[in-house]
């Protein structure tokens, strides 16, 4: 918007400048296009390798276009390891994480945004400061805790903490709830709602965008998480996709087309989610005011 109006204004003021503005415009599209190609090429390289015939991959100099398409390369990862099982594991962990994050952080965020109680503001400052703590500080002691509980090689170490309101999402929810007019609560109170009733009947239905943002972020982070599942999951059958992918690195080292097909498939859920819910990714930034 701003750019259109201001370029119109400038154009009418100095009409002789027009050719150079056009040149700038062309330069702009060239730069953005070239940058886009640079960003897209690694993806192309991954796809091209995944469908290429094996003997063509190792040619020198490398060829850009596959001679023929070999979609059977996508079956190799499933034959080597329980790749399907890993998808199920990652999907289970990510789904349970989404449910836990959405339920717990919306409730906690509601408390911080809407209810008055002694110590609230100090506690919220604590929430904010824990966002800055590097997770490695908690890594060793929580490992001891989960080992003592006998939770290794289960999904519990990965899921249970997400049901106890991770700070980032509490912050996100609270920021969104602050934008809902409090008058809505008052009318619900007059109609006889308890604070929990207001949360469930008024605030949650009005907050679907924020819940969507939290769900999408939580799913993406859980699906891509590496360090925590690497530590807690040591049996191949309970691996997540991200941890399991590493096994292919050695076993499929000479089968690059299968290795790239595994990497490609591992990224399909988050890429699909991004395409389906693109506007939520942008909205998350607006809600949290991350832009500054």
């Amino acid at each position, binding site marked *: 918007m701003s750019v259109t109006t*201001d370029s119109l204004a400038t154009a009418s003021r100095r009409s002789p400048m027009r050719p150079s503005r056009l040149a700038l415009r062309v330069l702009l599209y060239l730069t953005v296009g070239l940058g886009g190609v640079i960003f897209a090429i690694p993806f192309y390289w991954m796809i091209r390798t995944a469908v290429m015939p094996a003997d063509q991959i190792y040619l020198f100099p490398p060829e850009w276009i596959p001679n023929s398409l070999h979609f059977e390369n996508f079956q190799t990862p499933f034959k080597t390891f329980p790749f399907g099982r890993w998808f199920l594991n990652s999907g289970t962990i990510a789904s349970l994480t989404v449910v836990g994050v959405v339920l717990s952080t919306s409730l906690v965020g509601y408390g911080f945004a809407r209810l008055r109680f002694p110590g609230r503001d100090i506690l919220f400052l604590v929430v904010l400061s824990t966002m800055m703590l590097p997770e490695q500080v908690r*890594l060793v002691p929580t490992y*001891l805790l989960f080992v003592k509980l006998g939770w290794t090689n289960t999904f519990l170490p990965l899921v249970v903490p997400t049901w106890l309101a991770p700070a980032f999402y509490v912050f996100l929810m609270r920021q969104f709830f602050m934008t809902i007019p409090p008058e809505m609560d008052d009318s619900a109170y007059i109609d006889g709602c308890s604070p929990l009733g207001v949360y469930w009947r008024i605030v949650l239905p009005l907050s679907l965008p924020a819940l969507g943002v939290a769900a999408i972020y939580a799913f993406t982070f859980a699906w891509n998480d590496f360090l925590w599942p690497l530590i807690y999951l040591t049996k191949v059958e309970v691996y997540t996709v*991200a941890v399991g992918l590493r096994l292919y690195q050695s076993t499929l080292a000479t089968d690059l087309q299968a290795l790239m097909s595994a990497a490609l498939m591992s990224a399909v859920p988050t890429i699909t989610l991004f395409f389906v819910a693109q506007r939520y990714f*942008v909205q998350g930034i607006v809600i949290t005011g991350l832009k500054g």
Partner: protein
Amino acid sequence: MSVVAARRTVRKPLKRATREALYGYLTISPWLLGFLVFTIGPIVASIGISLFDTNFMDRWDFVGLRWYTGMVQDALVQKALLNTAYYSFCVVPLSTTVALSIAVLLNQGIKGQGVWRTIYYLPSVVSGVAVALLWRWIYHPDIGLFNSILAWFGIEGPRWVFSEQWAMPSLIIMAAWGSGAAMLIFLAGLRGIPTALYEAAAIDGAGTFRKFFSITVPMLTPTIFFNVVMNIIGTWQVFTQSLVMTEGGPANATLTLVLYIYRKGFQQFYFGYAAALAWLLFAIILVFVLIAINTANRWVVYERV
């Protein structure tokens, strides 16, 4: 129903506040529980553990502050610190510049902004492991993507992740590919700049570049500051890339601090040392974040119009 009934009985002007407070503590109780069990508890325990030599099984020897005094002389700690600092000092400015440049270009009323945004953002939604596997292949010294493009220009490319000198730059270039997340934040920031500022500047006769440096950049400094701080925190925790691509090699050229913590704790079972090293990491991040905050008032413009 009963809540309202209770609130309306006579003894209750005070009771309403009490009831609300009770509900307040009830609603935040999941966080409170998580905070005690998964944050404060571990923080206290971590200090304790770092005073022991322990494998969490049969070995629990009290060593006092020996891990902390010993890490100063640990050559691998020095190596890891230097490597991580190298990574952080290169990636923070590089990815901020790339993200900011793309965001500014995409904000020039370009056609198909959504499509471009998707292309630039997409690498950010792929897991670190998949990205690392892909880039290891891209960096293949003989038939990889990079060196074959360099060969078009008659340049014989380095051996990338297999070279002690080039392994870390390889990880840094790869990190720039993930600048999309920061770009998205910059785009939101750019949209928050009031149009009126540009209109006023146009009336005063300011050109494109003048407007960029006198309006866009100053108005965006809070966003830049936020990104730099988050990026400092993130880059000091770099782990997945160096584990998957190089396992810290060659010759520890990509050994990072978190990779070293992982090795010491979860591969060699010196959990006390791992805990102590995690505190070193925390201290370093804290120092750099404080430095960033303290320099902020010199360059971050907080005025809102």
